[in-house]
């Protein structure tokens, strides 16, 4: 066990922070600390430009293998990158799905042609991606996909029909990867295909979902004979589930420390307010501040442990499995603490009629943290079954 980074890593850190200091200026300055969860709808065009700026600096795909245009940075360096990015207030990335999910998936499962077609555009920040898994009836039960893909031999294309939901950034993205049923008679995880779908076409309609914040980050995506070229199926027809699940394994937690830096910013803001308005003298609030700080610190230690122990080979790691549940609960509590520290002032919006303050958005938006990406209930099931070996949940009879 060894805390701290090597000198080489620290040099890398300096490189990152220097580049950010030099580039997060001018037109990009206003993006600082913006575009995160709850704020994803803001400054889209500017953030898309920032994505290209990042690309010009070579900062997209730093964890990808060199053969695919990446930098093959070590886990430590990826962590450092995310930490510095967050510390500098780097804006919410609009290219993170392409970089973090599409890219690794194509590297693992895609054809050489697919890799050549798509990876460079991700690395250059030119093409943005979104993900199309969830459907109205496939939420926690993700495998219950109803969208159907049929191959039309004559046209040589797939046509997809169905409805996707909770698709963040869909209205701003160029491509979407979509799970759809290639075998219409199949059920559950069998008979699915993993498609790369261009969004700018008549068969795709995107409707924003207004959230409880009054803003929209998520969309419904209606697919009505949406056309997908034959070579845009990743893997075999019927094997889409394996591709989709393989994709989940790519998240090795390198971004968690960066996420925590954002959390620290939020907590610090709450603490500052507490010092200003006297809440910091309230012993009950102090307990909660102590608890929040403790929770965030331990979140950091957890991540350090996961990063050190997880060889990225899909080994089950308890600390990693519990991460989602941990941070989402912590974050939700922070939202609540923010309101209670503010007291009656918590109610006053930034600007009428309904421009919420940052902390109000935090309070409301953190309520989705415990739902998306696997609800807390699903997380506990997964932990109990995979990490603790308890018996599987009985399923219904349908």
């Amino acid at each position: 066990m060894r805390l701290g980074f090597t000198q080489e890593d620290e040099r890398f850190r300096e490189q990152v922070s220097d580049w950010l200091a030099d580039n997060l200026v001018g037109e990009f300055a206003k993006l600082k600390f913006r575009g995160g969860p709850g704020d994803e709808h803001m400054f889209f065009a500017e953030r898309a430009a920032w994505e290209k700026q990042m690309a010009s600096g070579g900062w997209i795909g730093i964890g990808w293998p060199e053969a695919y245009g990446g930098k093959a940075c070590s886990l430590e360096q990826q962590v450092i990158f995310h930490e510095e990015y967050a510390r500098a207030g780097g804006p919410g990335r609009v290219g993170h799905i392409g970089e973090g999910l599409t890219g690794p998936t194509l590297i693992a499962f895609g054809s050489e042609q697919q890799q050549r077609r798509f990876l460079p555009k991700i690395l250059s920040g030119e093409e943005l991606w979104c993900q199309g898994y969830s459907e109205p009836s496939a939420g926690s039960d993700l495998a219950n996909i109803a969208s159907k893909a049929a191959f039309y031999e004559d046209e040589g294309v797939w046509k997809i029909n169905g409805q996707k939901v909770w698709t963040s950034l869909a209205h701003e993205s160029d491509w979407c990867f979509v799970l759809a049923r290639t075998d219409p008679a199949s059920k559950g995880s069998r008979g699915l295909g993993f498609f790369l779908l261009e969004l700018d076409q008549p068969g795709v309609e995107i409707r924003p979902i207004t959230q409880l914040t009054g803003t929209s980050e998520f969309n419904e995506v209606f697919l009505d004979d949406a056309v997908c070229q034959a070579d845009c199926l990743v893997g075999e027809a019927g094997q889409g589930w394996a591709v989709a699940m393989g994709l989940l394994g790519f998240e090795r937690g390198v971004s968690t420390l960066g996420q925590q830096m954002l959390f620290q910013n939020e907590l610090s803001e709450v603490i500052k307010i507490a010092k200003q308005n006297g809440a910091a003298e309230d012993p009950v609030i102090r307990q909660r501040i102590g608890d929040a700080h403790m929770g965030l610190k331990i979140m950091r230690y957890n991540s350090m442990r996961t990063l050190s122990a997880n060889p990225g080979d899909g080994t089950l790691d308890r600390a990693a499995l519990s991460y989602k549940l941990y941070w989402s609960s912590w974050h939700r509590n922070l939202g609540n603490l923010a309101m209670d520290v503010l007291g009656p002032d918590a109610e006053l919006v930034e600007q009428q009629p309904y421009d919420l303050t940052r902390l109000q958005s935090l309070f409301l938006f953190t309520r989705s943290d415990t739902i998306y990406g696997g609800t807390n209930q699903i997380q506990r099931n997964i932990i109990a079954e995979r990490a603790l070996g308890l018996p599987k949940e009985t399923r219904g009879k349908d």
Partner: protein
Amino acid sequence: MDFSFNEDQLLIADTADAFLTSASNSAQVRAAMSTELGYEPALWQQTTQELAWQLTHIPESEGGLGLGYVELCILFEKMGKHLCCSPFFSTVALSLNSLLLVAANDCAKSAIAAIAEQGERFALAYSGGGRLVGLDSITALYHDSDSYNGVCLTGDYHYVIDGHTASSFIVAAKNASNGQLGLFLVPKEKVDVAWTATMDQTRKLARVSIREAEVPASNILSCDSTTKGTFENVLNLACIALAAEQLGVAEQCLSQTVDYISERKQFGRAVGSFQAMKHKAADMMNRAEAARSAVYYAACIADEFLGGQPLGAELSEAASIAKAYCCDAAFFNAGMALQMYGGVGFTWEYDVHLYFKRAKAAQLTFGDSAYHRERIAQLVLEQIA
């Protein structure tokens, strides 16, 4: 001892529920909340003229129905359940209660009549802003006037419920020289008001500014050594009314969630068949039931208090218990509802977030739960030798 509704009370509950089901449905709530006004004038007209709800606990001698606080809380519960957007709370729970507690006063009597007969809208202004609660939050000052018979009053008031649509104000201020509390009636002409938009849109707040306002002696509601106690009891009564609303919120979150999880299917089963969901629903029910007990006990105590009975001495305790428990129960249930609805609960389209925001706002009104628990602890620690 009979701690259940009588026939009349059951009838009031059913009638109010039926009325609000048609007069305060989701579309109507959303229409009202999105305006600065914050309520539908026709609804106000109906509740004050046709239904005359504001007469509920006004004594018959003052032209009221002479019913009790229990009956009033039944109305507040239903209004909470239906998220009714209305200045009824500010007018009745805050202002009318203030007036009733100083009822010997002529000024109060005519104000009561204005509410009773014309359905005039009143607001209570006291807090100078910030985290302090009740008496401690009052920063406005008054001093005796040299030039006329009365006082001169200056202050900035925050979080004034429905202040921007009230036609009269009851304002609290402290004597600039000796700190003694006074309660005054001030018409809207003498104040500056501005709507302050809020996260919970179903209840509107305003900021009220008063600069050197002349308050003639005839507008002094209370200004002696009893005023402090009166003011505290107004807030106690308001806490109970707010708790009743939150009972409605807690109960509605439960029943809507139970309906939703009974319908919604995942993994080939209604999600409500999963134990995790069932146990959460059970916890919600337990809180709603306990909230119901807390509210109606406190309402009975309020009646004892208003009737000058010995059990009325429990008012502070019962109010703090009801306020702390019900607000936490409503917030817990609304949070659970959001979680159990899954993604759709997070959308503007579904009503869950309206309850959630209302519950959070209620928690932060009249002192949060930690404040009230500390208040309870103080009472208990004094009682037990």
